[in-house]
């Protein structure tokens, strides 16, 4: 009897030690291994996923192996650390089918392979499903603007609130004319594709029409060579349209430099030497904004600024007489030209704002009641 008990004890100890040795030496094969064409990509990758192994299986890492058609299984990439459950194979070729095996490697370099996945090919998607929400919002917003633009053509009266900065444009030009001094128009540092620069150029077009009428000198130092050429053409057309081609002077619109502070130095120099009666600062500005605006203030010029660079707005507000804040800059064309189509687009913009307000209020209310699908939906959009 004692012998039997001893044997059982010995067998148990042996089994346990062998079991422990086995679990430390040979890991468990990764389970539920899947390989799928990565969604929403250009077809250049396949995503391999597997279930996380339990902590005590002694796995030190994973090696992904790949087979093309009937070829050999070949390791790809580096050894992935333990705990990894997915790998994206971006080194694939279109039209080729791949099968994958995930190999678990133990601390003692023992390995065990998963089952082979079915063959999969990488294909590109024509529509990014993750962007569905943003696509719908874009369509809704564009439709609101387009509908309002065409609705406005019917001659309906559209109200736009008073924008003091734009009301002051005529005052500024008039003052320069009375004083017999020039007008300085600074478009900032943005390129021709910048929305703020385009808006600034649009206001410049309107200003140029008035300066052509009043025969006031309009000086435009440019920071970007492409902007320079567009501005020259714009101002020239404005003078032609007003029947004053003789008053147009190409030398007044010139390139200074692309360097930010050298540009600021150049414009400051002009302000101090020429003492313009009115200065327009309309476009994209960075740290040079206050340097320009304070110098303008020091010569007593009437200054109208407008920018979409939010961090520069406080500087302009402190140093200029009028400041167009953000979207007011985009509303300038409609405001100055009173064109119904432009006014319609502004109403469309307000509809977009209402849509955002509604989403914000709904989102907050739902979050407060513990429902978070709207937040999750918006977070998924990237």
């Amino acid at each position, binding site marked *: 009897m004692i012998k039997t008990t001893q044997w059982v004890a010995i067998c148990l100890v042996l089994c346990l030690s062998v079991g422990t040795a086995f679990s430390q030496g040979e890991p468990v094969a990764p389970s539920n291994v899947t390989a799928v064409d990565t969604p929403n990509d250009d077809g250049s990758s396949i995503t391999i996923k597997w279930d996380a192994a339990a902590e005590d299986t002694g796995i030190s890492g994973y090696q992904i192996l790949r087979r093309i058609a009937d070829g050999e299984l070949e390791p790809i990439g580096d050894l992935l650390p333990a705990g990894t459950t997915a790998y994206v194979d971006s080194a694939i070729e279109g039209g080729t089918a791949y099968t994958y095996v995930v190999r678990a490697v133990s601390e003692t370099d023992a390995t065990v392979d998963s089952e082979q996945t079915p063959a999969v090919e990488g294909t*590109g998607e024509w529509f990014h499903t993750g962007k569905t929400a943003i696509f719908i919002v874009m369509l809704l917003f564009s439709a609101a603007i387009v509908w309002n633009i065409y609705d406005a053509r019917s001659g309906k009266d559209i109200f736009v609130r008073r924008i003091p900065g734009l009301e002051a444009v005529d005052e500024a030009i008039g003052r320069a004319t009375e004083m017999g001094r020039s007008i300085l128009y600074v478009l900032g540092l943005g390129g021709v594709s910048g929305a703020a620069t385009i808006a600034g150029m649009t206001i410049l077009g309107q200003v140029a029409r008035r300066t052509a009428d009043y025969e006031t000198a309009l000086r435009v130092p440019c920071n970007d060579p492409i902007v320079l050429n567009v501005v020259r053409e714009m101002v020239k057309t404005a003078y032609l349209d007003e029947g004053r081609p003789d008053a147009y002077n190409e030398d007044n619109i010139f390139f200074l430099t692309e360097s930010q502070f050298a540009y600021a*130095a150049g414009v400051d120099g002009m302000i101090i030497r020429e003492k313009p009666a009115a200065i327009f600062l309309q476009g994209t500005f960075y740290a040079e904004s206050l340097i320009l605006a304070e110098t303008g203030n020091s010569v007593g010029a009437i200054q109208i600024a407008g920018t979409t660079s939010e961090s520069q707005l406080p500087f302009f507000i402190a140093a200029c007489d009028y400041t167009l804040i953000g979207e007011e800059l985009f509303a300038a064309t409609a405001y100055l030209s009173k064109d119904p189509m*432009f006014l319609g687009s502004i109403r469309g913009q307000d509809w977009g704002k209402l849509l955002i307000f509604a989403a914000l209020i709904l989102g907050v209310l739902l979050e407060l009641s513990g429902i978070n699908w709207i937040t999750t939906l918006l977070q998924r959009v990237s």
Partner: protein
Amino acid sequence: MKRQVPLILCFLFGVVMILTEFSPHAASQSVYNEIVNWTLIVWPFATVLAVATLVQTHWARIQRRSEHWQYSYVVFAGIIVMAAIGVPFGMKHPAFEWLFNNVQVPMGATMFSLLAFFIASAAFRAFRARNTEATLLLVTALIVMMGNVPVGDLVWNEVMAWSPWSDKVSEARQWILDNPNLSARRGIILGISLGGISQSIRIILGIERSYLSGGDA
């Protein structure tokens, strides 16, 4: 016709660029990359044009003996010297590096440092508690400025020693930046973005044509 072709091109490229944003397919991405590369080609031509206008402007100034015409020679000297060293020998050439470190860097830094002077003078002139809003702005600005620098902490703690907020200026500054600053900024960004989209739609539809050298606004 002179007007129609650019407008049609603008519409086509505008719509294509929007669609490529939503299509990850290789074909659509290659169209996107191709168009982006085309935009790069414009640069060298524009740069040549820019240098030409710069030279033209300053040459005319010298010929006309306009006010301060002598400085135009400095512009030419700068262009010629930097190009004569930089183009054949590259930017690693000691002479180029010397000019960069001893001329460009100090001049640029001088201009940037003007900000400190102008911020001081603008703040002194503009920060006045004229009404409730201006007072709020003033108090907020003072808290942020004090919380921004270590000496501000020290002074605040001394001045406010009597109050429960004596060591709270850094926290208050961070709260202001994280909350009122952030929400106001988001509001402005939303407005700007909507305005930008609205302007883009007007351009794509050919309603806004200012970029085509004026004409119909």
